[in-house]
């Protein structure tokens, strides 16, 4: 029953919301902790790091003329103190399991700390700055491409579902396997054609060097640089996306209530809006939200091919440098974004679909 007291309803909604939040939080904590353990190699990485510190400090002493005159014993003693100091600074003298709890606490509090080796272009070693510097580039490129693909494929899929079996429909189905190749694959060809054979567009980067001074010229330059990577991503995913949405709409447009709407004499536009799109809004929304958070992280190879200064490249470098704070920082932010998205989706579902009840089936 949809009835019940208003105050009771509010309490139910509140309890549901809190329970949901708690569950999501636990998920985030588990995910982040696993990342911390994995990024540290379950503590195995400590030995590696200790050896690294030892060799770096010994080398530094060997190179330094100031210590030339010391006896080997004295020098070794100095080196040992220096190593111990560095190990204490990085807290390598404590067992990993204790440190991991601390790391978890800091990560959950979004206290992402400092990187070990990497730094931002501005020279900062704060993980926030390092990630924050790359984020806009990734969001711009992947946001543009994915939004384009998403909306054009839904629009086109609806159009095709009305023309099931037509020549256009069949050719889209036939073109779907083009998506087997990733975006960077098409990127290489696009660069070859449009940057070298017919040199009209830049082959890589995000903005011309030196960067244009006026905002308009800067924007235009970024736009020109974006064209090829966006096109590469668009080509690689548009057909499979249209194909799957078209099949999705075909399934839902053979529902009995759609046929009924047709018999009722509703105009095709209205049938599409009220009887096909409206009931299927929850899954469409889910796919949209997951697409949005999928932007986070970018794509490593595509960014490499187009020399795009995004998060994909950053993660690649961070893994190469074993810069755990950067890796963990990125994962923590992603985990939070994912949790918030799922939470918002839960609420949206309840608003959009009357069948989704709070207790899951506790209706008449």
């Amino acid at each position: 029953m949809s009835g019940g007291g208003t105050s009771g309803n509010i309490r139910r909604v509140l309890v549901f919301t809190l329970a949901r939040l708690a569950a999501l939080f636990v998920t985030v904590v588990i995910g982040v902790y696993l990342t911390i353990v994995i990024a540290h190699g379950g503590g195995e990485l400590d030995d590696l790091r200790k050896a690294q510190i030892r060799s770096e400090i010994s080398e530094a002493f060997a190179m330094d003329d100031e210590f030339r005159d010391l006896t080997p014993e004295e020098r070794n003693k100095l080196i040992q103190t220096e190593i111990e100091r560095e190990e204490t600074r990085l807290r390598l003298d404590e067992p990993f399991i204790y440190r991991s709890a601390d790391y978890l606490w800091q990560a959950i509090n979004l206290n992402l700390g400092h990187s070990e080796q990497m730094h931002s272009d501005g020279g900062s070693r704060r993980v926030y700055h390092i990630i924050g510097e790359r984020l806009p580039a990734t969001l711009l490129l992947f946001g543009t491409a994915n939004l384009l693909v998403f909306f054009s494929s839904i629009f086109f899929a609806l159009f095709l579902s009305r023309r099931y079996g037509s020549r256009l429909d069949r050719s889209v189905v036939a073109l779907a396997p083009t998506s087997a190749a990733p975006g960077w694959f098409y990127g290489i060809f696009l660069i070859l054609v449009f940057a070298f054979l017919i040199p009209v567009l830049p082959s890589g980067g995000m903005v011309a060097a030196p960067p244009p001074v006026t905002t308009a010229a800067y924007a235009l330059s970024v736009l020109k640089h974006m064209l090829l990577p966006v096109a590469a991503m668009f080509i690689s995913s548009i057909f499979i996306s249209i194909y799957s949405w078209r099949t999705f709409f075909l399934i839902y447009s053979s529902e009995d209530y759609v046929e009924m709407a047709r018999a009722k004499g509703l105009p095709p536009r209205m049938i599409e809006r009220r009887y096909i799109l409206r009931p299927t809004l929850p899954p469409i929304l889910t796919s949209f939200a997951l697409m949005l958070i999928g932007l986070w992280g970018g794509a490593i190879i595509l960014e490499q091919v187009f020399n795009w200064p995004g998060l994909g490249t950053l993660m690649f470098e961070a893994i190469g440098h074993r810069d755990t704070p950067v890796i963990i920082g990125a994962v923590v932010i992603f985990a939070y974004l994912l949790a918030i998205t799922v939470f918002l989706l839960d609420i949206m579902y309840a608003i959009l679909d009357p069948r989704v009840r709070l207790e899951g089936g506790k209706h008449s």
Partner: protein
Amino acid sequence: MPETLTDTLLRVEGLKLHYRTRNGVVRAVDDVSFDIRRNEAVVVLGESGCGKSSLAKALLRIPPRNTQECSGKVWLNGTDIMGMNEEKFRKEVRWSEISMVMQAAMNALNPVVRVGEQVAEPLCLHRGWSSERALKHAAGIFSLVGIPNDFMRRYPFELSGGMRQRAVLAMALVTEPSLVILDEPTSALDVLTQANIMNVLKRIKREMGTSFILITHDVSTSSEIADRVALMYAGQLVEFSNADDFFRNPAHPYSRLLMASVPRLRQVIRPEHIPGQPPSMLSVPEGCRFADRCPSRFERCVKNPDLLKINGDREVRCWLYEKGLKS
């Protein structure tokens, strides 16, 4: 050409609906002709798969996607509605003149729109009413079909099967169309609800002067409301008679066997079954389509007979009634 008889509401001539399938063409409705008078209930009987539901879809011009051919002539009040363009047909015929209760009525309601809005929707659409006015009018129809008015604010999943069936019926009646096609409106319901809905239909027929095409395989329930009976077999009409004649004295051999198969309450007569199966709709025989199962089969049956008029207004597709053979 159709003679515009004042009491003829719908006249169908040579209606065809053929489907394309992997195995060939299925002739679900194959050259069906009949007429329906004002304020008349015609029951279309037949086994599953004989083309009853396809007939309904062809009349409302909502053929499924795999349709190969949907043709024929249909006149409504003397107007050719098959020749109309789609837009004109949608605006002037669908729901304003002919409405329909679909076979899968349980699933015929949009799950995310309140029942009242769905029932009132055709009024806003076809009469341009405001939604308040439409809802107010719909409330009257809800009472007529026996749904409490506060159910209008509910969603379909909050209604029982019987209530949903009534809601779909209310939707079909809300624009007061001259013809309502009911495709198995009660087959998924328990007997009490069935009886209830049949009573509602009878009342509406009496009070609103509506004509009905009731498609069913349930002989007993249909006898409640039928004025005339059309019996279909393998995509064609095999008998079209007054209900009294049909139920008391079925003419076609298939009709006779069908009536003998209906169980009666507390009688010692055992219901008979008809041996054999209807022909595959993919390859219908050249001759009479019932010949294989017919006990009265004779040499004439290698050709398919036309509908023959007997006793004035009965029509039978059987060589037994050819002039001179049987009086």
